[in-house]
């Protein structure tokens, strides 16, 4: 159970406070309700590029990192297709420095040409390092546009192509900030060795003078229902043939989300899972195989991917996956097997609550999904999943007509 208090400033900024006196640290997590899904199709990768620019100096403070490091703090940020999230931790007596820094970059950035020019290059190097210069690095650049026709999940957070990043202009940057970065689009969580009253005082002092702004209305095109199998085959300079099968699944807030998540656990969580035992150990068709949900906020993807043992034919490998899927759909899952996956989930959630920063980030995400208290209902939501629910969702989800398949083959 994570206890917290929640209030709103006059400018609409949501503030959540979680006191945890067992740590000498305090952290601020600020989530902005903007991700790659909010980008223009011709200017992709922008939410993430913008995350980099948030470290290029703000209107009154030329450098974000230096003053934070001076007080013993550390920070980072991440961007997904759904959100952009910034966090920092400091020794708790220096919490005001974090308020000062975070509020100034919510107020406005320095917008220097130098920062834009350099961060464009840095992000292009990131693109190369993670997506181009790695074996299988371009998988998601291929899978997303295969699985999605209209929803902006069809491009990756890093962007569709390097040219989109190269072409980003200062006008684009300023417009993006104006639209997406203001108190109305943000959720702030302050956690750790802090006091509610002091956090209120500091939030009012540093954040309340910022103009509320307007939360832009999100109106994303809905992905039409897939009605037939999609396939793509590519050859690359890799040593091992690999298969990816992705299925459209429900959104994060859907009542069936936890059921679908547990289906992926039954299939592949841990060495006692079905796919590992049947396909890696018994039949020895795969050297590794996994199933997982992407965790997207909108209707997202359920993924099965596996690397084939040398010499195994792709059709045999795929057939073996389909056989396991057929079992999920036709044979009710054993109560004990389901309970095993629930227990594992319960203990993962409990372990994740040992870290104050992790708690802060999860509170912010839960609040954005509708209510910070969702974080305290997760275990119960998983416990409520039923045998018949699993079977029904498996039938709905795991169909070839709902599936995009990628054969990623080694060059002959």
């Amino acid at each position: 159970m994570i206890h917290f208090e929640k209030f709103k400033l006059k400018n609409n900024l949501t503030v959540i406070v979680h006191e945890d006196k067992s740590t000498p640290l305090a952290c601020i997590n600020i989530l902005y309700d903007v991700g790659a899904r909010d980008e223009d199709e011709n200017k992709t990768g922008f939410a993430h590029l913008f995350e980099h620019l948030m470290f290029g100096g703000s209107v009154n403070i030329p450098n974000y990192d230096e003053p934070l490091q001076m007080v013993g703090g550390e920070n980072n940020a991440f961007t997904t297709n759904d959100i952009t999230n910034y966090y920092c931790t400091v020794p708790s007596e220096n919490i005001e420095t974090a308020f000062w820094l975070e509020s100034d970059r919510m107020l406005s950035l320095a917008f220097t040409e130098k920062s834009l020019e350099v961060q464009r290059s840095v992000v292009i190097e990131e693109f190369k390092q993670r997506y181009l210069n790695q074996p299988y690095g371009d998988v998601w650049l291929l899978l997303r546009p295969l699985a999605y026709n209209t929803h902006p999940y069809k491009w990756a957070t890093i962007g569709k192509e390097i040219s989109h990043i190269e072409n980003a202009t200062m006008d684009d940057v300023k417009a993006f900030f104006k639209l997406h970065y203001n108190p109305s689009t943000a959720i702030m969580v302050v956690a750790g060795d802090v006091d509610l009253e002091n956090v209120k005082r500091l939030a009012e002092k540093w954040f309340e003078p910022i103009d509320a702004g307007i939360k832009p209305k999100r109106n994303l095109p809905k992905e039409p229902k897939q009605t037939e199998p999609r396939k793509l085959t590519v050859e690359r300079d890799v040593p091992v043939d690999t298969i990816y099968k992705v299925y459209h699944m429900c959104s994060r807030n859907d009542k069936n989300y936890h059921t679908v998540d547990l289906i992926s656990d039954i299939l592949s969580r841990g060495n006692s899972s079905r796919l590992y035992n049947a396909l890696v150990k018994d039949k020895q068709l795969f050297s590794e195989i996994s199933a997982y949900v992407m965790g997207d906020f909108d209707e997202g993807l359920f993924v099965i991917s596996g690397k084939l043992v040398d010499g195994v034919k792709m059709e045999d490998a795929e057939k073996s996956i389909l056989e396991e899927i057929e079992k999920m759909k036709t044979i009710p899952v054993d109560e004990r097997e389901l309970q095993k996956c629930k227990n594992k989930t319960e203990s993962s959630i409990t372990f994740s609550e040992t870290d104050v920063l992790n708690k802060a980030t999860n509170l912010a995400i839960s609040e954005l999904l509708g209510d910070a208290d969702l974080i305290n209902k997760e275990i119960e939501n998983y416990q409520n999943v039923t045998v018949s629910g699993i079977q029904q969702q498996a039938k709905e989800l795991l169909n070839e007509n709902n599936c995009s398949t990628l054969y990623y083959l080694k060059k002959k």
Partner: protein
Amino acid sequence: MLNRTAAPEFKTIDKIDILKASETKLDNGIPVYSINAGSQELTKVEFIFNAGMYYQNRTLLASTTNTLLEAGTAKYNAHQISENIDFYGSFLELGVGQDYASVSLYALNKYLNESLHYIEELLKNSIFPKQEIEIHLANKKQKHQINSQKVSTLARRRFSELMFGPQHPYGVDVQDHDFDTLTQKDIINFYNNFYNSKNCYIVVAGNLSKDVFTVLNSHFGKSDWGHATPAAKKQIVIVSSSQQKHFIEKKDAVQSAIRIGRILFNKTHPDYFKFQVVNTILGGYFGSRLMANIREDKGYTYGIGSGLSSFVNAGYFYISTEVGADVTTKALDEIYKEVKKLREEPVGADELETVKNYILGQFLRSVDGPFTLAEKFKAIKDFDLGYDYYEKYFKSVKAVTTNEIMELANKYLQEKDLIECVAGKM
């Protein structure tokens, strides 16, 4: 009116309280170090053996033995072991480093006893079935082949070999054929020699239940287990490469991986603390000189860093990055320029203060929570050091001067002493 240009007042960290591990012994003499902290009803139990790469006489032996501990025992097959550990919601984590091998269990307190039963089995009665070994090695080989396509892997592997020499277990560069030659007999011998009650200690951390010691004793403490001989200390000579520059070409690479460094010392050396400050200034944090120049000014890379790796029998210093293939030479020039600057120009007072405060902040972060406290304990225990090590660390960092920084840079970072390895395209 709020003044946003002036930084708020702040405090420097003057003292850090570390919750110390307390020592007891099981009936058979296995030392148990416990850290009782945290609010969740969880426990991590870690068994640490002198069974790292240093002790292997064949490549891959230490890691393969460790990984296959869950491949079956006299009583349970691999599936039964994982099935039961998973059912209790517990996590088994196996790991091998240069010096130590470890077996960790993470469990909810309510299922600790049941879960430990399976750990007891695999520590005392593993049988390493032939088929499990074959499947594991074949799959590992495939992973090795995939990793061998990454410039970062190519540079890292070669760099270790250049530091320590191809014969040294810290430096060995695994080859494809190594996966074909390891035998069941090798593995069983290694298990018998190194996984036993005389060659082991236990660290237990979490919100510990009252009976945790009794539970541990019932599973692991009643009598000696395994062949019960402590591992012999051995000395292996380090032979660094006499050639300074090395290049592994990868024609289609869009980035090059760079490693530059030298054999130095481990954390027991008197200069270790203050050299950590030198390292942090150069490449040990986001605001470091290498990051400021090569990423934040030139945009050549997504990231660059430096560090000190400390093992029981040696240590080394390294700089590591991946840069655009077209700017490889320019990036190398800038790296050497930054090292030279450390030798020739005194570090500014502001920068030194920032680095000191940052290091102390990191230190504070690293003693927060039961599991990080356990890591902090192991980090001294593995080197036969006491908690006063951290007091000295704290004081040395606070006291280091501009002159000392320059002296250390001159003593340890001469360009002629640095070995360079690039994988990619130049």
